[in-house]
C-alpha cells in the first residue's frame, strides 16, 4: 500500500489504517487480495460469464443430437465427451451451470428481500413483533432443510422456477435471524442515538445508518445461501422434482449418468460433478474471503 494513501485512526486505543477510499472499494480490494478470494473471483467470473454467454459459446445446443457420437470419451471435439443420446456434454454442463446460477440468484433474491427486512423489523421494533416473528422463524428452522423444501414443493408443484422459490423460502429464516442479531447489536450504538436525536424516523435510521453496518455478515450468508441453493437444485432435480428431462440441469445430468456408471462410462458423471464442485468451493471461498476482508480483527495484519 502506498504510504500517501493511508490514513491512521485511533479506535479504542488501537491504531488502524484505512486506505482513503470508499468502504466498498476497500472491502472489494481486500477480498481480491486474499488468496481464497482470488480463486473464488476467478472461478465465479468464468462460470458467470460462460453462463451468461452460453448460447454463444456452447459448441452445440444442449438438445442437439449429433449423429454418430454416442457415448464418446472426452476429446478435442467434445471436451467433456458425449452422452447416450449423442449430445455434447460440455454444452449441456454449460447450460446446467446457467440454470444452477439462475436458481442460486433467484433463491438469494427471495430469501434476502424477505428475510432481511423481517429481521430488521423484529430487531428494531423488539417486544411483541420480535417475539412473534422470531417464534415463526424458529419453527421454520426446526425442520431440516430438505424436509422444508419438500413441503413447499408439494404445494407449488415441480419445476425449476418452483425449486428456486422453494429454496428462497428456505433461506428466509436464516437471513431474518442474522439480520435481527445484527440490528440488536447496532441499535444500541451512539450513532443511532445521534441520528434519533436529529429526528430521524425508524425507517431512515435502519436504511441509512444501520443497514450498511450490518452488511458484511449478510454478504457472507448470501454466498453460502447461493452455494446451498445450487446443491439444493441439483439434489431436487436429481430426485425428479426440478426441471424435466430435455433441460440440462446438473442434477438431471447426474441422474441420467448413473445408469452408465456400471458400464465404465466415467466422463458422464464426472462432468457435472466437476462443475458442481468448482462452483461450491468457489462460493465457500468467497464467503471465507468476505469474513477475512471485513472482520476488524484481521484487518490490520
Amino acid at each position, binding site marked *: 500500500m502506498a504510504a500517501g494513501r493511508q490514513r491512521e485512526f485511533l479506535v479504542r486505543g488501537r491504531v488502524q489504517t484505512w486506505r482513503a477510499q470508499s468502504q466498498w472499494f476497500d472491502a472489494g480490494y481486500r477480498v481480491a487480495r486474499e488468496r481464497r478470494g482470488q480463486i473464488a473471483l476467478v472461478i465465479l467470473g468464468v462460470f458467470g460469464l460462460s453462463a451468461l454467454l452460453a448460447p454463444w459459446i456452447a459448441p452445440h445446443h444442449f438438445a442437439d443430437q449429433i449423429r454418430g457420437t454416442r457415448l464418446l470419451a472426452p476429446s478435442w471435439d467434445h471436451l467433456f465427451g458425449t452422452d447416450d443420446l449423442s449430445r455434447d456434454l460440455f454444452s449441456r454442463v454449460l447450460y446446467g451451470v446457467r440454470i444452477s446460477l439462475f436458481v442460486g440468484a433467484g433463491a438469494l433474491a427471495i430469501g434476502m428481500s424477505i428475510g432481511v427486512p423481517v429481521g430488521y423489523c423484529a430487531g428494531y421494533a423488539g417486544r411483541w413483533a420480535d417475539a412473534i416473528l422470531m417464534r415463526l422463524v424458529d419453527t421454520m428452522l*426446526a425442520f*431440516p432443510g430438505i424436509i422444508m423444501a419438500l*413441503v413447499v414443493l408439494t404445494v407449488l408443484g415441480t419445476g425449476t422456477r418452483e425449486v428456486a422459490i422453494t429454496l428462497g423460502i428456505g433461506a428466509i429464516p436464516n437471513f431474518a435471524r442474522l439480520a435481527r442479531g445484527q440490528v440488536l447489536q447496532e441499535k444500541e450504538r451512539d450513532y443511532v442515538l445521534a441520528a434519533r436525536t436529529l429526528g430521524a424516523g425508524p425507517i431512515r435510521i435502519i436504511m441509512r445508518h444501520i443497514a450498511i453496518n450490518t452488511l458484511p455478515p449478510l454478504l457472507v450468508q448470501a454466498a453460502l445461501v447461493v452455494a446451498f441453493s445450487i446443491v439444493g437444485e441439483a439434489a431436487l432435480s436429481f*430426485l425428479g422434482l426440478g426441471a424435466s428431462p430435455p433441460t440440462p440441469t446438473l442434477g438431471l445430468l447426474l441422474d441420467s449418468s448413473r445408469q452408465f*456408471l456400471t458400464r465404465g462410462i466415467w466422463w458422464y458423471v464426472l462432468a457435472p460433478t466437476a462443475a458442481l464442485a468448482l462452483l461450491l468451493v468457489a462460493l*465457500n471461498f468467497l464467503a471465507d474471503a468476505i469474513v477475512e476482508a471485513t472482520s476488524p480483527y484481521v484487518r490490520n495484519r
Partner: protein
Amino acid sequence: MLPFLVSRIGQGLIVMLLASLLIFSILRMIPGDPAQVLAGRDATPEQVEQVRRQIGLDRPAWEQYVTWVTGAVRGDFGRSFSRTVEVGALLRGALLPSAELATAGFLFMVVVGVPLGIFAGLKPGGFPDYIATGFTMVTLGIPNFVFGLLLIWVLAVHFDLLPITGRVPINENPIEGLKFLVMPTIAIGVGPAAILARFVRSSLMEALNQDYVRTARAKGLRERTVVLRHAMRNALIPVITILALEVGWLISGAVIVEIVFVRPGFGTLIISGVQFRDYQLIQGMLVVLVTVFVTANVVADIAYGLVDPRIRVS
C-alpha cells in the same frame, strides 16, 4: 433435575405442536380437491361429496386438524391418496430401512469425526489436521448424493467390492446387510463427519489453552491424562449440540442417498408423495421426521444438562 427435564420435554412438545400445525396448514394450500382426486376423474358430484364426507373434508379445518393430530398420536395417519393404503402401514414399512441407514451414518460420523478432530486439535498444522482440512474441502464441493455416485464408480464398478443397489435386512442376514449398507453410510456420513471433526478440533484447541490445563501439566501429569481427563471432558460438552443438529443433516442425507442406492425407505415414499401431491402421506412422513429431529434436540439438551450442572441450575 426434574424441573429441568420437564421443561425441556415440554418445550419439545410445544415445538412439535407448532410444527404439526404448520405442516397441516401449509399442505391445505395445495390447489385441487383431494376428494375429487380420490373419487376418480369421472365420478359424479354425489360420489365426490360422499368421498369428501368419508375422509372428513366436509368438516371445519380445526376439527380436521384435531382428528388428524389425535389419530397421529395413536399411529393412525389416515389413508394415502395415491396408494389407497393406510399411511401408518407405509410409514412402518419404511421406518426400519431408513432408521438403519441413519443410525449407521450417525455411528460413522462419530467414529470418524471425533478422533479426527481430536488428532487435528492436538497438533494444529500436523498430518491429521491436513487430512481433516482436505476432508472438509471435499465435502464442501461434493454433495452427499454425488459422493454416493462416485463411491459406486470406484468401490462397486472399478474394484467390484460391494453390491451397488438394493438392501438386505440386516436382522436377517447381517453380513450381506452390512455390505449393502457400507456405501450409503459413507455417503451420508462424510459431510457431517467433516463438520464434526472441525468442531471437535476448535473446541479441543480452546480447552487446551485454559488455565486448568496448564495447572494439570504443571503438577506433572502425563500428557495423556491431561488431554483425556482434563481437556477432553470439557471440550466435548459443546459437541453434543452439534451432534443433535447433525441428526437433521443425516435425515436429509438419508432421504436422497436412499434414492441413489435404490434402497427402500422414506426417500422413495417422500418422492412419490410429492409427485402425486399425496398430502396425507407427506403429512405423516413429516410428522415422523420432525419427531425424530425434535427428540434428538431434546435428548441433546438433557445430555447437556447431565454433563454440565451449570445449565440445569439456571
